[in-house]
């Protein structure tokens, strides 16, 4: 019976081997020394403060770590401040990649990280799940895929909303151009023209960052605009509407991008009767009771963090990254994370209107949907309960 027993042994061996393989595939991600190192390059001090973005990412990671980590691996998260200084930003990225050995960048929010570092990221084969893409390079680099809609796609989306739902016939666009954003804004309007089949009535790329806005609102009125889209940020939104009120202009819908969507803007413009619309990057953060926000609100409150739009971005980046890491079989390294992000299937999350995907495209702008808020008596109200999703540009 020699042959029978050896067959049995062989069968057992085969079975246990396959069982071992089975355990290996069910084990999911593993890590060398118990940690997965992740970093973010963000503007924290300097002319702008985007620290809410990576801090929310950190809160999300801390929650996972407290629950035992991901497959037993704790996430070791480093936030580097680029101080809005190109040299500091470059140094911060190199430090995260070479010294801290980060496997990916998650939840960065910076004025210039993408512009300064995207070439480094390409060279080092590391990917960035950007929490808040600000500069144009965040939407035109193979190694960065932001979780926010961004100013350019949002411009197209708001223009689409103006013609589609506000029935605007003479849409005008006034943009502040900082750095190399002119082409991106022009492209945003061209995309809208292709989608809607309409022509922009007036486009002005000379809006000043500071200075009197009276000549511009007069120009909009005299050109007969029935809707005006601009990319102004918080204080300028207030200034523009005050100037419009001072000039007693009526009959124009004023459309702004996500930076205008803050509680300070709402309270500063409580008295105006102008129709003011803003596009959001994610599920409106002021809707604290919305089911889509529930998990984010709970996690942020547990971490003692404020509920801001920026924190949605950081939180969303963390959630998407965690899902991708959970899908990795074997050791979590820069190579395996990069491969997983390249090969990932689109992931949906209630915080955003589009599924997120990294993929291998040369440029990334996965988020193509916004919700529109209207300012009424000093408070933001949801104008579009359903997401405004941009159709594909032909």
């Amino acid at each position, binding site marked *: 019976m020699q042959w029978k027993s050896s067959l049995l042994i062989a069968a057992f061996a085969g079975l246990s081997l396959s069982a071992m393989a089975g355990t290996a595939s069910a084990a999911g991600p593993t890590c060398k020394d118990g940690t997965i190192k992740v970093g973010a390059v963000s503007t924290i001090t300097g002319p702008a403060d985007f620290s809410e973005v990576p801090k929310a990412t950190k809160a999300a990671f801390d929650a996972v770590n407290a629950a035992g980590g991901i497959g037993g691996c704790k996430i070791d998260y480093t936030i580097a401040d680029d101080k809005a200084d190109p040299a500091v930003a470059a140094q911060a990225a190199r430090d995260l990649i070479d010294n801290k050995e980060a496997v990916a960048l998650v939840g960065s929010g910076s004025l210039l990280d993408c512009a300064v570092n995207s070439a480094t990221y390409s060279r080092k084969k590391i990917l960035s799940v950007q929490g808040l893409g600000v500069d144009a390079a965040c939407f035109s680099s193979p190694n960065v895929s932001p979780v926010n809609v961004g100013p350019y796609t949002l411009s197209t989306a708001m223009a689409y909303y103006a013609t589609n739902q506000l029935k605007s016939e003479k849409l005008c666009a006034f943009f502040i151009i900082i750095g190399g954003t002119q082409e991106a804004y022009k492209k945003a309007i061209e995309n809208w023209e292709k989608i809607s089949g309409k022509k922009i009535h007036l486009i*002005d790329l000379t809006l000043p*960052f500071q200075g*009197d806005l*009276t*000549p511009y609102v007069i120009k909009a009125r005299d050109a007969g605009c029935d809707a005006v889209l601009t990319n102004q940020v*918080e204080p300028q939104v207030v200034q523009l509407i005050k100037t419009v009120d001072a000039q007693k202009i009526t009959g124009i819908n004023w459309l702004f991008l996500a930076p205008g969507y803050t509680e300070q803007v709402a309270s*500063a413009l409580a008295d105006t009767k102008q129709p003011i619309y803003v596009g959001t990057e994610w599920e409106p953060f002021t809707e604290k009771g919305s089911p889509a926000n529930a998990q984010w609100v709970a996690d942020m409150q547990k971490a003692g963090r404020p509920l801001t739009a920026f924190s949605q971005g950081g939180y969303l980046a963390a959630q998407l990254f965690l899902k991708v890491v959970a899908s990795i079989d074997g050791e979590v390294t820069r190579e395996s994370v990069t491969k997983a992000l390249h090969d990932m299937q689109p992931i949906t999350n209630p915080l955003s209107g589009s599924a997120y995907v990294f993929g291998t495209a040369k440029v990334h702008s996965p988020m193509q949907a916004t919700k529109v808020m209207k300012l009424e008596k000093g408070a933001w109200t949801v104008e579009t309960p359903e997401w405004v999703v941009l159709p594909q540009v032909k």
Partner: protein
Amino acid sequence: MNALLTSAVAGLTAGGTYALLGVCAVFTYRLVAVVNFTGAAIGTAGTFVLIALFEAGFPVWPSVLAGVAAGTGVGVLIGFIMTRWFGEASASTKAAVTVALLVGIIAVGLRLTGGQHPHNMPELFPGSAFRMAGVEVTIASVLTIGLAALFTVLADLFLNNTKVGLNLRALADRPMAAELLGIRVQLLSLLVWGMTGAFTTFALMIIAPQRSPNFMTLSLLVVPALAAALVGLFRSFWRTLAGGIALGVIEGMASSVDSISQYRSAIPFLVVLAVLLWSQREARWDEAR
């Protein structure tokens, strides 16, 4: 042509602002011999005291008084630094010191006032005065131009027809000699700093609602204001007044011409450059004679 006129009138609001702050700059220069880069920042500090009190629920006009008092205080403080430690320094050193102070005030101000976040700024003089070339000329802009003109007249009279004015001029030219003559240099200087502080604060309170309401933007209004002062070569109040208004009007007109409107924020610098070249040319002439 009509569009050009419309945008010229639209530029009056900015022009009044530049003129008013420019006249204040000339006043400071003629009386205490400092090219003051902190002028608008002092006013901004006072204005933000008003904003803070207003947002905290205090009534408007008492808050205005508190704000003006605070602006006066900041003005006196800067004056104290300038007279105490830089009284005998050269004009260029003094100017450099005020630039450094400006950077410091903006940095602290941005931190204290929440950075770029907008604030709820009460409009002290709401409404429009009249309509011209299709533009509502606001009461605030009429008021700024009016105040600039009033300050011009008063400053001229004060400097040329009063004893204190004469003393102050002596002080600006030769502080040491003035002190030896028994003029109370320190006190008079601080008086000037306090006065301009109060005045610019009130001016900025009128202007602020029409500008982007954050600390840095308001403080940097000093750039076009100094350009206006340069048109008056830091001597003539009337030419500064005219220069300020002209700057605003040119800026307004520039925004209606597409090809140059993207460079409109450079206009103050072009004016500075032109005036400097012009004054240099005169100096050459004088030498040649």
